[in-house]
Structure formats: C-alpha cells, structure tokens
C-alpha cells in the first residue's frame, strides 16, 4: 500500500471519462460551423455560392483579427477590452493620415500598428500593475474617442490621392488580402500562443496568477505582452478597415466592441482566463457572421436577425458551459 506501485495504479485506475463528450467539447465549434454550413447550403439557395462565402469571409476578417488578438488578453485572465471601437478607429485614422503624408500605405500600416502597440503597452502597464482591465480599457476608450473626435473635428479622414485601397482589394484567387491576413493572423497567433515562451506564460498567468508569480512568471511583463498582441491586431484591423473604404471617421465602428466580445465568448474562451485559443475566437467570429448572412439571405428583417443571433449566442454559451462542466467532472 505504501509503494510507488499503488500510485501508478492510482493514475491508471482513473478512467478517462467521457471521451466522446470531450471530443465534442473540444471540437464543438468546428462541428457546429460545419453543421451550420451544410444545413444552410441545403436550405438556402444562394448560400453556397463562391461570392457569398467570400462575402462572409470578408465580413469576418476584421472582427476576426481583433477577436483573435484580444484572445491573448482574455486568456491572460484580464477579461476583455471595452475600448475596441475607438482604438480601431484611431488606428485607421493614423493609417490614412500617415499614408497620405508619406505616400505609402505600408508606412501607414506601420504607423497604425506602432500607435496601437504603444497604446497597448500603456494599458498593459496599468493593468499589469494590478488595476482592473475592464475599467482601464473603458476609460482609455472614452478618452481616445474624445481625442479623435476633437482632432478630426468630425470630418471624414482620407489618404488624399494616395492609393491605400490595394491593401484591402489586392486579391489572389479572387479572395482579397484581408481574408488572407485574417487566416495568417489566426495561424500565427495560434502558433505563438502554443509554441512560444510568452504565449505559454500568458496561458499560465490566466490559469493561476499566484502560482505563476511563484514560478517566476512576471504578471506585469506577461500582461504587457498580451496587450502588445492586442495592439498589433487593432493596428492591422484598423488599417485594413480604413483601406477597405479609403476613409474613416470618429463615429465609425460603433458596434465593433460588442461584436468582438461576442466572438471571443462564443468561441468558448473562458472569461476567467487560462483557457481558450485564438482559433476558437476566429471560428466564433465566423459563426456569428455566417448566421447573420443566412438570416439576410432568408430575408429576415433586422429585428429577427438581432433576436436570433442573441438567442443563438445564449444557447451556444450555455451549451459550451455545460459541455465543459461534464467533461471536466
């Protein structure tokens, strides 16, 4: 009874419970997405056309990029940002202004990312010091919105005669660049969270802050890294959004913050931190856009669309929650 054998037995004797449940749980989203796509392809005549799928992808890409990059913040146990919309608008405006000045969209992109990352670092410093992330990002978001509105006087900002549109229109196999960037972004984010020290530390910090500190993982530095990742996503998304329409104004993107948060939560990343993945957030964003698209194709009016999306989000988060509980019991 006192030997190591009993401990080994202890390990092996515990059955790996509910492997089917676990499979469904860990693949809920892909399975669900596949189901939704197949069902819609059958029931909705115009759904499975190339142009429509492309439209879904294009409409997902910007929300998706932000959702993917915000996942780092959520995983690190810092909930989410409530300042997404105004930060993205700022990035877009910086992109247009700098592109207009320098004549190069790439310079604009660089500047947008640089500004977003700087703001990310500032917020990361505040949050890393122990201040509440929800309040911090809410406050910073309001300040950014006010400053942008003052600086632009409400005018539409453009890049003048400089061609910034190629960033959003350049395409390969008739799929435009933002979609590739979204896919690439998701892949890179997945790789970074799984295979780099920082990605791993972000996970561990969210899983248990106290243990992380005792294991020599700095909560401050790790939080700042999560916010840097977020800043990169915002910068890229803002630039793509601005280049898509060659313009941006302070009031743009009003519903973006909620869209992104919904995507991350529908993706199943735990609000308490430590669990989740950028791929899931990307799929979450895709699912929400696809549902909206299907309802549009069925000619449902706006009220029904909002109502059903809300209903599906509720059902989905409840289902994910119950599955998680069952599989970890």
């Amino acid at each position, binding site marked *: 009874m006192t030997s190591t054998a009993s401990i080994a037995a202890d390990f092996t004797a515990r059955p790996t419970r509910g492997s089917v449940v676990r499979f469904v749980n860990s693949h809920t989203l892909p399975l669900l997405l596949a189901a939704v796509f197949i069902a819609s392809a059958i029931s909705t005549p115009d759904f499975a056309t190339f142009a429509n799928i492309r439209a879904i992808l294009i409409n997902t890409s910007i929300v998706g990029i932000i959702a993917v990059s915000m996942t780092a913040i959520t995983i690190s146990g810092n909930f989410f940002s409530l300042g997404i919309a105004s930060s993205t608008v700022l990035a877009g405006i910086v992109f247009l202004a700098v592109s207009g000045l320098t004549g190069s969209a790439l310079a604009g992109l660089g500047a947008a990312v640089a500004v977003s990352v700087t703001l990310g670092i500032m917020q990361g410093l505040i949050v890393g010091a122990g201040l509440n992330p929800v309040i911090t990002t*809410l406050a910073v978001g309001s*300040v950014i919105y006010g400053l942008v509105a003052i600086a632009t006087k409400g005018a539409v900002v453009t890049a003048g005669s400089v061609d910034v549109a190629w960033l959003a229109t350049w395409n390969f196999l008739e799929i435009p660049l933002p979609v590739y960037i979204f896919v690439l972004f998701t892949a890179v984010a997945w790789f970074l969270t799984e295979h780099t020290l920082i990605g791993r530390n972000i996970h561990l910090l969210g899983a248990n802050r106290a243990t992380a500190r005792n294991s020599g993982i700095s909560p401050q530095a790790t939080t700042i890294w999560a916010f840097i990742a977020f800043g990169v996503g915002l910068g890229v998304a803002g630039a793509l959004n601005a280049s898509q329409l060659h313009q941006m104004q302070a009031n743009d993107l009003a519903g973006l913050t909620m869209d992104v948060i919904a995507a991350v939560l529908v993706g199943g990343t735990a609000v308490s931190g430590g669990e989740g993945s950028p791929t899931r957030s990307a799929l979450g964003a895709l699912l929400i856009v696809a549902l909206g698209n299907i309802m549009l194709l069925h000619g449902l009016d706006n009220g029904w669309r909002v109502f059903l999306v809300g209903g599906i989000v509720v059902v989905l988060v409840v289902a994910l929650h119950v599955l998680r509980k069952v599989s970890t019991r």
Partner: protein
Amino acid sequence: MNAAKEFFLKYSLQIVVLLLVVGIMVMVSPGFRGEAALFSSLERLIPLGVIAAGLAVTMIAGEFDLSVASMAAFAGAIAVQLGGLGLIASILIATVVGVLLGSLQGWVIARLGISSLVFTVGTLILLRGATWLATDGVPVTLTDYKLSDALMVRIWVFTPLSLTTIAVLAVLGIFLSRTRWGREISSIGGARQEAVASGVKLRSRLVLAFAISGGCGALAGALSSFRGGSATPDGLANMLLLALAAVLIGGVSLTGGRGGMINVAFGIAITAVLAAGMSSIGVKAFVTELFTGVLLLVVILLEFAISKAVAYRASLQRRRPHLAVA
C-alpha cells in the same frame, strides 16, 4: 459626530471627486448655478441612476448584468405601447416584466453556475432583438402625450422622475444594508463559499439580485420612455457603459461584496453633474465623453494608490506581532 466622521472617511475619495467636479463646473459655466444646476443634474438621474443602481446590485452580488440597458429599452417599448392603460399601470406592468425576465435570467445563471458576464452578453443582444420585434423596428410613441406631463411636474428642484430615482436608491440602500436578504446578497459577492457554509441560500439570492437589476432596468426604461413620449428600438444602448462608469466611479468593486447604494449615489451624482454641467456650457458630446474617461482613470488610479497605501500601513502594523485578543 463620530458617525459623520466615519462617513467622510469612508467616502473621502468620492466626496473629493464630487466637490472637484461641482467646483469645476460652477467655475467654467456661468449658467450652472443654484436651483437650475441642481434641477438639471437631478433630471439626469433617469434613466442613468436607476440603471446604475440595478447594475450595482448584481455587481455587489459578485455578478454582472450586462443586459440591463437592453432591458430598459425593451421595457420602454412595452410601457409606451401600453400607454392606454394609464401612466402608473403601464410603468408597473413594464417593471414587473423586467423583474420576471431578470428572475428568469438569475435562475438560469444560478442553476447552471455559468458566468453571468458571458450569459448576459447573449441576453443583451437577445433583448435588443426583442425590442426591435416589439416596436416593429420603428419608434413607437404615446397616443396621448399629456400622460407624460405628470412625470414632469416640478416640486422645487425635483420631479417625480428624480424623486423616483432617489426613492429607488434609498429603498435599495436600506434593503442591502439593513435587511437580512440584502446583506446576504452582499455576502455572496464578498465570499461566496463562506456565505453558503453559513447557510445563505445562494440560488435564491442570485435570483433576487437579477430580479432587482431587471426591475431597475425596466423601471428606468419605462420612465425615460414616458418622459420622451416614445421608445426607439435602438434606444438607451449607450446606457450600459455610462452606468458601469458611474458605478465604478462611485467605488463599487468589480469583484463583488464591496460598496453599496451610497457609493452608487456618489457615482451617479458625479456623472450627472458632469454631464449636466457640460451640457449647460454647450460642450460637445464627445468632449463630455473624453472627460468621463479621464475622470474614470483618475478615480481608479487614486483608488489604487489608496489601496496600496492602506496595504503598506497594514504591513507596518503586522510588524507588531500578534494582536492581543481581549
């Protein structure tokens, strides 16, 4: 005397910020004086104050009701359409609907043990959709605008609207701090397991907290829609963040258990004075938002600094080993 001193000490940060905001507003706006200023600040309490109070109750219980602003919009749509039944009746019905929906929400959250933050992100969208369906996507208006006049009768600086808000705050304040059920709501936010071990019925208190927030949201929405004589499908959407900011500025903790209606009162007083003052100077809406953001940052930074100082003092005290037990 001692009680007053304790009060000032406990709410020193909020008092200082409130005085500061009042001072600045009086200084920069020549029109922001006396009764007019008081009245215009008080009028801001609907819908902000009541929504904030409801949100705060769930936060004190360690949860979040993000659907509270959508609930307000939904209830507003119902109340306006029921206008034919009379002012009181339609507001009451709308509020009861809010209480019922809130309870249902609380029950699901308690039953499943799901994060209310996650769940109410869904119901926030769902209720907004319900509002669209209830209004058919267009603004709905009262058939008889005179109905709303009763809400705007002025009694010195008060109207039935601001008096309702004050009453709601007072009732909830007394409920939370003076009654068993109220204290149990705070206890499940402060230390849930401990509270349960002490015999607090978790589920029913959660249901109660969400019923209150649903009812508050609905009441605020109904009153505000009656004042305007109409309800719009996309109305009151910005109230969630405004109310959240007000509650946080007031010093209610995001992690539950700390803060009460006095904090909420301070929070909404500060934001109401700021908004009313700004609007009286004719400051642009986005500048007001900028200032709210700055204020929020200042408050949390101060709070952080104070908490660090308190922790440091406590560590100094700990150096005197072993407190003597009487």
